[in-house]
């Protein structure tokens, strides 16, 4: 069995996974209006960590979250020869060093935490987080490592904000994934981490089970999703078949749900093709914004909190179906019997990835 636990989240909603979950239960969102943040001096909705200094933010978030994770596991694990760290991020520490966005952070991590093995950066656009967790599961299943610490982190920068503005992809309201009125993404920043291991004993709190999944390319367009949801459909199909699960076995889907017309529509088509439309589903991006390389880790971590607390979490901003295939979007937080959660992600470069987590 492959265990997953010790999840942590640092975001505008809080400095721990538990704090973030409480904030979500209290219907809070990390999204706020930032004056003059846009390229033309326009005000833009973003989800920014406001109470942390901008100086060295990327590195600080990562070292902080790793310190928090270490408290939740056997403290010999982090520097063990049988452990590797994966960092999931799209732009790293771009504002401090555009020429080498990961070098310094990785070097700092290695020295500060006495890491025995070279950390690996997974940089695969918005599917990086889910992909990193799958890679971790694969490493452990193969026996290459016994423990993998996965950290996901990305910041909001002018670089990325202006870029998405040039694609007309930024929403003029806090994003409303899957809703009929949706018109784009809300950028978010944050840092998430979790530990994957072949040993239950390393965790101080009961871990969950990871059923690692797969990725599949759309083979369609570098920045637009496939109209038939081909890549996401194939990834979900393979992930479920590999783990011997049927649609009826899934209790909840944490979808990618960015809030763009095309992405959310594509997901509805892929889930429909997979016979998953009756399954309760949400997007967490109405709480965290789109945290890019951190998204897969943060959203898996918060899904783990759902399993621990046996609570279904609503999809904020959703009111009316806005996709051609109707999904069972969760509209209010409520207690539920949850055992198995499917997490999906889609991203630029045609990537799609999925994984499953389960209460033991």
């Amino acid at each position: 069995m492959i265990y997953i636990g010790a999840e942590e989240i640092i975001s505008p909603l809080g400095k721990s996974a538990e704090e973030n979950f409480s904030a979500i239960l209290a219907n809070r969102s990390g999204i706020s209006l930032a004056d003059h943040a846009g390229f033309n001096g326009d005000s833009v909705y973003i989800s920014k960590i406001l109470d942390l200094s901008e100086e060295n933010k990327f590195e600080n978030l990562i070292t902080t979250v790793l310190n928090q994770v270490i408290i939740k596991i056997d403290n010999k694990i982090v520097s063990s020869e049988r452990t590797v760290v994966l960092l999931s991020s799209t732009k790293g520490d771009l504002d401090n060093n555009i020429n080498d966005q990961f070098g310094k952070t990785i070097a700092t991590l290695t020295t500060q935490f006495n890491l025995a093995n070279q950390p690996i950066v997974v940089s695969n656009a918005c599917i990086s987080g889910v992909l990193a967790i799958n890679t971790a599961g694969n490493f452990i299943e193969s026996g290459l490592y016994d423990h993998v610490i996965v950290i996901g982190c990305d910041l909001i920068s002018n670089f990325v904000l202006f870029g998405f503005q040039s694609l007309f992809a930024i929403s003029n309201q806090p994003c409303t994934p899957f809703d009929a009125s949706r018109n784009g993404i809300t950028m978010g920043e944050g840092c998430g981490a979790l530990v994957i291991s072949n040993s239950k004993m390393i965790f101080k709190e009961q871990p969950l089970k990871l059923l690692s999944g797969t990725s599949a390319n759309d083979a369609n367009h570098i920045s637009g999703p496939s109209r038939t949801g081909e890549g996401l459909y194939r990834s979900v199909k393979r992930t479920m078949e590999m783990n011997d699960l049927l649609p009826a076995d899934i209790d909840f889907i944490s979808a990618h749900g960015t809030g763009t017309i095309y992405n959310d529509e594509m997901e509805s088509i892929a889930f429909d093709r997979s016979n998953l439309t009756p399954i309760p589903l949400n997007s967490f991006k109405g709480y965290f914004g789109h945290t890019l390389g951190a998204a897969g880790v943060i959203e898996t971590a918060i899904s783990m909190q759902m399993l621990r607390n046996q609570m279904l979490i609503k999809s904020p901003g959703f009111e009316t179906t806005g996709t051609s295939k109707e999904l069972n979007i969760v509209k209010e937080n409520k207690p539920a019997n949850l055992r198995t959660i499917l997490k999906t992600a889609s991203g630029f470069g045609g990537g799609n990835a999925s994984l499953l987590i389960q209460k033991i």
Partner: protein
Amino acid sequence: MSFITAYCHITSDSCLVNGEEIVTRDSLSNDSWLKQIYKSQEFVYPKFYKMDSLAQAGFLASELIKRAQPNLSAYQDDEIAMLFGNQYSSAESDIRFKKSYEEHGAPSPALFVYTLPNIVLGEIAILNKWFGENLFVVLPKFAPDFFVSYAKILMSKGSEAVLCGWLGIGEERSDVFLFLVEKQGNAGMEFNAGNLHKLAGFELV
């Protein structure tokens, strides 16, 4: 067992397939080095001109590998995985995109879409209609151990072949090395770290 059945190098002035040089850089040409390879090898794919250098290098090397290993087309459309990496992510394209809004008046969407290192995988997938596994990693240097371990893991989980690549592309230099790993060998070299290290030819220390 698995085998390296084809490989391609693009260095700063030479393009080699399976160790044999097929194009030498013309330092007097107005065309970029990658464009020279494109024209010399008579590729016809107009999208090439829109790509950034990571994507162009990936396109060229993968196409040359396909020519060297034509039975690639016999695989199912999801059986070929892609496992790529480099040291500096998409830094070169990032710098160009940053210039577009800092110096040239407006952020360029055509440049922005290349500010992610995995886009090259998308370009190759689109061209070939490959729906398989993808992974792009950033490492301080080419790591044969990682590529051997993870390519083998992918082949144990449903992939039948893995197209691996190191795209060390910068303003002044090119250390591009793509190699194809398959479960069947024929004339291929055994896929292990020692062979990979030798084949890569990079300074690894």
